[in-house]
């Protein structure tokens, strides 16, 4: 469904991605793990069009989408839930969700997705008229994910949904990721919490300083001694 071939991305002269290739199949949860500065977020931003690769191609179902501006990529169903719970802090929860559906005009579909999101995240329903910035960290993460869901993504790019959350909430967030996936949305999940990510994912890629170090079945990676040593820390 989504294929990256030999992607090279630069921040000015800093070579951030040094030939990334990966694929995500329809219906999968694929996770991208690695330490700080490995290039995980850069990879997501390259896919979603916020960054443009200098070399390499991104295909969405056979069509090239690298060099498309970000809003067009969103329009094609690749929707990113940005890192650090980037929500519209001064808009209400409801307005935040509505903004997610900005590019859609199927009112019925929007209404049903709105219900779906509020069913997935009952917490948001309780807070519906509150400004996003007054939510707790976990709720903000839910809002960011909910907003991304409102675009009815074909593939959802989640950037560190567990960042800075209490363990109990991390568990909850990952359960919701599984639920979203089981409803038919393909997910590319970037995580530092490798353990949790590999437990929900079908497949995984391990990144290190702009390259893919390892890839494979999530269960295999969980058991891989290199991964265990470097990221899981037993």
């Amino acid at each position: 469904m989504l294929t990256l071939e030999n992607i090279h991305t630069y921040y000015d002269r800093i070579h951030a991605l040094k030939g990334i290739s990966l694929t995500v199949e329809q219906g999968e949860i694929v996770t991208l793990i690695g330490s700080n500065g490995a290039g995980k977020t850069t990879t997501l931003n390259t896919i979603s069009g916020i960054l443009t690769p200098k070399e390499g191609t991104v295909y969405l179902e056979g069509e090239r989408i690298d060099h498309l501006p970000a809003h067009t990529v969103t329009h094609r169903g690749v929707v990113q839930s940005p890192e650090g719970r980037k929500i519209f802090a001064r808009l209400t929860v409801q307005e935040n969700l509505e903004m997610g559906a900005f590019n859609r005009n199927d009112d019925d579909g929007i209404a049903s997705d709105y219900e779906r999101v509020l069913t997935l995240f009952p917490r948001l329903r309780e807070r519906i008229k509150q400004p996003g910035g007054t939510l707790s960290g976990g709720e903000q993460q839910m809002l960011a994910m909910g907003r991304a869901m409102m675009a009815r993504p074909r593939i959802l790019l989640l950037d560190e949904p567990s960042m800075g959350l209490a363990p109990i909430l991390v568990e909850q967030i990952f359960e919701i990721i599984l639920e979203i996936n089981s409803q038919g949305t393909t997910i590319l999940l970037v995580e530092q919490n490798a353990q949790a990510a590999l437990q929900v994912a079908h497949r995984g890629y391990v990144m290190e300083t702009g390259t893919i170090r390892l890839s494979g079945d999530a269960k295999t990676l969980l058991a891989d001694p290199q991964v265990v040593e470097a990221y899981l820390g037993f």
Partner: protein
Amino acid sequence: MKKGLNTGLTAFAVLTYLILIGLPTRLEGAAQPVLALLLALFFFAVLRSQGKEMGRGELLQSGLVAGLVAGLLVVAEIGFFVGLLADGVKIQPVFDKVVPLNMAALLNVRAGAIINGETSLLAYAILTAYLTGAGLLGGLLVLFTRSGTASTVRSTRIPGGRWLVILLPFLLFAFIYYLGLDGVKTFGNDKNIVRLLLVLVATGAGLFALAAAKEGVEKLAIGGLLAGVLLFLPFVLNQFQNSVMSIVFIFVMMGLGLNIVVGYAGLLDLGYVAFFAIGAYVYAFVAAPFSSPYISSLLTGMGISPDSPLLGYWSAIPLAMITAAIGGVLLGIPVLRLRGDYLAIVTLGFGEIIRLFMLNLGDLTNGPRGLLQIAQPTLFGVAPSALTSHLDAQGWIFLLAIFGSAVVAFVAIRLNDSRLGRAWVAMREDEDVAQATGIHLVQTKLLAFAIGATFAGLAGQLYAARQINIFPENFSLFVSIDALALIIVGGMGSIPGVVLGALALKGLPEVLRGVDEYRIVAFATLLIVMMIVRPEGILPSARRRRELHSAEAPPPDESDVSDKPTDGQLEGGRA
């Protein structure tokens, strides 16, 4: 009680300031009621924030005490001054505005009486009564306009108060009409300033009435009535009042445009005057081609006489708007990537560039000598002021400005509710996230600049018609600053706020013309106080109010999560 005392002392300081700058001299016979009204507004503002939890009696008592304290202190002060004046002490070198006329206006007696020391105690008592009444009125106003859910509010709000707020502007307008009738002697022969002040206050009160009206039929009906009264105004005001009101409403048009750029889209534009200037000059080029050396020689070369206008006022509107919009896009493109401070500086430069163009492109713009004798707007080929003696040339401009403001306000309201409006809000909040939700940033930004510029162009065109002669100096940085200040004072992102801001910042200074040298200080003070006391503006949009008072919103439930996990928890998490 103690709060009332404090408020009274503050009011006394404010009044002393107003007396020392010579405002009463200027107001003449109307000094007492006008000062009382201003004081009532002051008390209203203070009590409103102080008296949130006060009951009805407590609030009124507070107002009464404040008014009485201010009144007694002011009377003592005036008595002191009057005593000095009667004794022939020279206080003018120290306080140059403390003259017998000033005191006479305050006490509503003849100036001669002051000099001869013949002031009665009754005059002082009346002034005290006025100011005490102001305190009571301020308290009453708070009771009338209280809103919210607090239980104290429900128990203390006076039923039907809303209707008084709604009725107030109409009463004021009726009074203005009465003052304009032949033979009415209230406030003496020179009612110029008092009537202007009343018009400003009445128009402002109209906005509050509109805000107090219930959504739906009631709002529509009141809005319609107010619009009707407003359209009637140019016919009853005199030349001076009309000319002030026309500039106020030209700035309303401009403020509404800037409000789109700054208030909706959050792009701080300090060079907004550029588009105003473009609109004015474009109209001047077509309406007075003879005053531009280049255009007149070009036209002569083409065999067209440059002596008559090329386009009428109405047919020049699209031209002025489109040219301004192009200017907006031209400014927009280079600043697309800039944010915040950098954007402000570049736009500031752009405004100056346009002014310098006007100044130095001597062939085209006639440089500092300006473009002269710009044709007046007509209606089907005739100037309406020629048809009826009730409408002078300035009144006609005022009428056009009201009309233009209405159109611009309608467009702005529709835009705010549109997809584009939401894209602007999202962009203002966070450009990155906006992009991630699928908003075309380039297009959205350029549209904000272009639409904002269009409104300024329209305002500029009318301004050129009003001024008849325009010079580059009419389009200095201060026009941008005025426009920005008025939306800040009124309430960013709010349309009634823009109107109120224009009334306060472009209208009131004209009332205070006589106290010229102090008015800039007065407005600087007003701006600073506003930013501290009410950063969202006087009539803010609902969203803006929420943004700046989010601390008062219900706090999130704290029981659910701790955001920052401790080290131990992290490891144990899911294993």
